[in-house]
């Protein structure tokens, strides 16, 4: 293609940098949001994987068991019988130092050393692995330079009580140096640890880990005689397989041998729905960005109608014109995507904190301190940005190609066509909306389909907005008969649909999304609140503080438990054990509750009438389980299904006697009688106790007595039902901070789009403004005119967005949440949510109008008139 043609393009675009910059920013924000979400979720996943790798090293398989872990004698027998499988015992748990949660890993370094030696016997390939793992096998320190070194550290590791090692960066953050003593809490029990060495490798995954000897870990975690896993390294050949098969056959019931990390990695599944939500929100930002690019490109085309007409007359083919416009947009897309990539990496660092906080609250402890840059995902983000830009350019390019080689259309013709397009878009919207409905009706479980339906719905809103804008503006112009300026303003909006329509559509889209999301969050919040109030029948709850759900070390010490429950004033109490057990369908959370008749009112069985409910409770008392709605959805189970769980004595099927409401845990779990749990898992631990007080007893007195009973033995958390409620709600709110951040971003992109469109529009009607000014409109009046128009457009966007937003909310509540989490939420609408949306719409529009208004007020009449 002609270089001169290119020069013309480039100069045209560069001559109006504001347009270009706004479009770039819009696209960049869209890409940045996607990138940031990718980075945040990938970093969290990566951190989790790294923490697994840091613990398991080059092991290939692991032996694990249920919540009570493995008997250490199993390790001894394997170590004696199968040394060449390089068995390494591990005991893992969570501890806290101050407020910060760490993963505690108890290990036997000598077993690890043997494993390394076995590896060394494997020949060059294995040595390569070893070196990759950081073993300083070949390097020898120069004489005299090394510290007392290995022997002394091994001595301290094995013989010094509390000896622990952590990453140098963690130590720095905690203000510890080698030799420092520090307080560490495991399951609420305080201990003194001493830092005997730092891991200065700086390897990712090491942060957030505390290493100690396996003996020390057993003592801290209260798991004497237990291991959480035995890692093995089997050669990846027939012999290795045979050895593993043979070993597997000899393992006791309830003990699993599987590829390393498989069990832990299923934890990652838990966060999948969460990540999907984030990605959907980020796509929304890009969608808004698409409108922005469309606006910029189509404006750039409109401005050059005459130029294109001349070019066509001079002999440029349609293809050449299309190519020109598409390439312009492509360049815009590439630039915007790259900018967005940079911004996304920065934004991702902010999001990481939010994401990891949420994950730690809801799922598992993970220290995310390295930013993972998932190359594939980043490439996808850039690609999405570029494709968006190209998609956005398709219509304008087609428009440009249709320009006849004449002197160019007059504006009015164009607007006539825009109005026609607006009408066509209404039809398209109807199709989108029908499609959205059809998808919802025709799919039942696919979350992706749910999101597609949501996007179609939002697109339908966007499509209908220009027509709505035109209609409202015309109607308004008619109403404003008495005020010529008002008529002028509204008439201007109506007659410039090609400009204003797109901007208002994108704003409407953002507002609709905002309404949808905030109503969904609000509904969820209300449902959770009601559920908590219904569920929490006891007066006081006692639990062991600490990270991680269902961790075995979060156990009330037996003597503390005895002391607590004998405090005067307690009418009755219920002990609960939380645990995570394996099943063929992945890990399952169990809440094992000492059954009391009072519980029946606190647990809402879904869809069970009185008699059926009585039967369900009867079955429950005889060993059946209740299953939380989310889990039932995920496993596609219902009342009467049977759930297979790995008990301490092997797999066993449990009947699902009923489903219950549960909003506390996005994965859901099962409820079981504690006697049943104790029988099958042999775990006597108690994770929490709920206490009902006798009549007339002052809760504060009981709390004080409880604290005295536990003092010096174990840190316990005592909460009244009001405390728990408040805490749950604050965790909930924290979880949705990210969602809020994302829809603000989307609104920001939309506002930028509006500004951009207004600038374009202002250029086009410069003459009109010039005439008005020459007729006596003051600069302030010109500014006010523009502001009035933009605020009007904001209002129209809001009007279009309200029904759409409510529909989107309905979709989010009944389809997306159901499909992502399996729970049913009651739809709750609050006036404040709509008021917020209105405020956002007007504020965004008003803000978007400020700069164009200022420019108009400032421009000289002559400048306005000189424009052709």
């Amino acid at each position, binding site marked *: 293609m002609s270089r*001169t043609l290119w020069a013309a393009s480039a100069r*045209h675009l560069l001559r109006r940098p504001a347009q270009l910059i706004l479009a770039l920013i819009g696209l960049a924000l869209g890409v940045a949001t996607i990138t940031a979400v990718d980075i945040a979720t990938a970093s969290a996943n990566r951190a989790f994987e790294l923490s697994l790798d840091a613990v398991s090293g080059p092991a290939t398989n692991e032996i694990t068991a249920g919540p009570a872990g493995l008997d250490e004698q199993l390790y001894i027998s394997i170590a004696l019988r199968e040394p060449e499988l390089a068995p390494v015992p591990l005991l893992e748990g969570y501890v806290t130092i101050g407020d910060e949660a760490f993963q505690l890993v108890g290990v036997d370094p000598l077993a690890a050393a043997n494993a390394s030696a076995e590896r060394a016997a494997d020949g060059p390939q294995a040595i390569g692995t070893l070196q990759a793992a950081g073993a300083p096998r070949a390097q020898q320190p120069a004489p005299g330079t090394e510290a007392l070194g290995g022997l002394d550290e091994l001595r301290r590791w094995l013989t010094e009580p509390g000896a622990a090692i952590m990453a140098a960066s963690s130590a720095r953050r905690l203000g510890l140096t080698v030799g420092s003593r520090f307080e560490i809490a495991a399951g609420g029990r305080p201990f003194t640890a001493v830092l005997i060495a730092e891991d200065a490798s700086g390897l990712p995954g090491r942060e957030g880990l505390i290493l100690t000897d396996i003996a020390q870990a057993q003592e801290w975690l209260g798991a004497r005689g237990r291991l959480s896993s035995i890692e093995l390294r089997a050669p990846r050949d027939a012999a290795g397989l045979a050895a593993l098969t043979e070993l597997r056959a000899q393992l006791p019931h309830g003990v699993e041998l599987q590829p390393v990390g498989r069990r832990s990695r299923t934890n990652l599944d838990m966060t999948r729905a969460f990540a999907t939500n984030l990605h959907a929100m980020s796509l929304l930002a890009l969608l808004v960005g698409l409108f922005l690019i469309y606006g910029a490109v189509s404006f750039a085309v409109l401005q050059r109608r005459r130029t294109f007409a001349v070019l066509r007359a001079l*002999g*440029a083919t349609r293809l050449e014109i299309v190519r020109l416009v598409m390439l312009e947009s492509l360049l815009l897309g590439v630039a915007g995507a790259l900018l967005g990539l940079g911004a996304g990496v920065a934004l991702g660092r902010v999001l990481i904190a939010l994401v990891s906080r949420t994950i730690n609250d809801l799922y598992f402890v993970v220290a995310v301190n390295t930013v993972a840059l998932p190359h594939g995902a980043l490439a996808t983000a850039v690609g999405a940005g570029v494709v968006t830009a190209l998609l956005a350019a398709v219509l304008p390019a087609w428009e440009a190609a249709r320009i006849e080689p004449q002197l160019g259309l007059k504006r009015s013709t164009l607007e006539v066509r825009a109005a026609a397009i607006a009408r066509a878009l209404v039809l398209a919207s109807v199709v989108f909306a029908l499609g959205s409905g059809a998808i919802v009706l025709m799919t039942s479980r696919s979350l992706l389909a749910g999101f597609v339906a949501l996007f179609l719905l939002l697109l339908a809103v966007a499509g209908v907005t220009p027509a709505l804008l035109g209609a409202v503006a015309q109607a308004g112009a008619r109403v404003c008969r008495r005020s010529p300026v008002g008529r002028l303003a509204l008439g201007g909006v109506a007659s410039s649909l090609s400009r204003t329509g797109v901007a208002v559509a994108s704003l409407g889209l953002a507002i609709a999304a905002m309404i949808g999301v905030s109503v969904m969050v609000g509904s969820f919040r209300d449902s959770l609140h009601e559920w908590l109030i219904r569920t929490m029948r006891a007066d006081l709850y006692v639990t062991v503080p600490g990270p991680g759900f269902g961790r075995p070390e979060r156990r009330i010490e037996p003597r503390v438990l005895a002391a607590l429950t004998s405090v005067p004033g307690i009418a009755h109490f219920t002990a609960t054990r939380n645990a995570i057990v394996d099943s063929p369908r992945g890990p399952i959370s169990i809440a094992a509750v000492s059954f009391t008749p009072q519980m029946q009112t606190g647990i809402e069985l879904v869809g069970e009438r009185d008699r059926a409910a009585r039967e369900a409770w009867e079955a429950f008392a005889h060993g059946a389980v209740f299953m939380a709605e989310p889990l039932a959805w995920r496993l596609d189970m219902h009342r009467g299904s049977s759930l297979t769980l790995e008990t301490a004595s092997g797999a066993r099927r449990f009947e699902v006697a009923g489903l219950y409401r549960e909003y506390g845990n996005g994965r859901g779990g099962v409820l079981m009688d504690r006697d049943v749990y104790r029988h099958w898992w042999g775990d006597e631990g108690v994770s929490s106790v709920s206490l009902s007080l006798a009549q007339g007893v002052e809760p504060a007195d009981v709390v004080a007595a409880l604290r005295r009973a536990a003092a010096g033995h174990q840190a316990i958390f005592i909460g009244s039902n009001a405390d728990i409620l408040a805490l749950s709600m604050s965790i909930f709110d924290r979880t949705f901070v990210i969602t809020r951040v994302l829809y603000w971003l989307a609104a920001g992109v939309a506002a930028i789009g509006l500004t951009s469109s207004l600038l374009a529009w202002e250029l086009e009607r410069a003459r009109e403004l010039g005439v008005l000014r020459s007729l006596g409109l003051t600069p302030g009046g010109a500014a006010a005119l523009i502001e009035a128009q933009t605020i009007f457009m904001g209002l129209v966007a809001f009007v279009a967005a309200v029904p759409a937003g409510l529909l989107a909310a309905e979709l989010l509540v009944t389809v997306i949440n159901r499909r992502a989490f399996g729970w049913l939420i009651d739809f709750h609408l609050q006036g404040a949510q709509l008021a917020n949306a209105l405020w956002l719409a007007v504020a965004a529009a008003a803000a978007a109008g400020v700069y164009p208004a200022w420019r108009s007020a400032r421009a000289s009449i002559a400048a306005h008139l000189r424009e052709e």
Partner: protein
Amino acid sequence: MHAVLDEVDLELQSGASAAIVGRSGSGKSTLLNLLSGIDRPDGGTIELDGREIGQLREPARTVLRRESIGFVYQFFNLIPTLSVEENVLLALELKGMRGAQARHRTRGLLDRVGLGSRAASTVDMLSGGEQQRVAIARALVHEPRLVLADEPTGNLDEATAREIVPLLTELVREREAMLIVVTHDRALAAAADRVWELRDGRLHEPQGSSEGA
């Protein structure tokens, strides 16, 4: 819908020029569009050097335009973001000619229209007459067989118009091209070899000077 043009017969030889005059709305622009292959006639033939233009399809008509036709507009229609030289060069590049040869030819023609020294200027800096000279250079640089001019003096003052008209006809004649001018300008019309009046969709011999008064 109604026919704008009806039975227009017009034939030109190489190097000849014709002026077409007529009232607004008489179909002058439509005629130009037909001649340039922008629109297709409902019937009849338009031949250029023996090629039937009227029945060509896109993009053959576009190719025809860039190979064989040059345009001069009332409002010049230069590309504002390009320099004088680039505006002219563009016509050559669209035809596929670039490099030193194209530059040489462009320079020569710009010298010829008296703008050799302004080659690097942006077109905004030029006066109307100068802009039209650039447009003329652009219309001729690719050696078209036919030059179509739509009110080329319509946006110029009289003095300037008097410089432009001979320049255009002279250049066309030098290149043995054909020139068709649509104009109100009697002086311009007079400079043409033949003059037609477009009225009621047909071409007529001009009916004397009283017509235009």
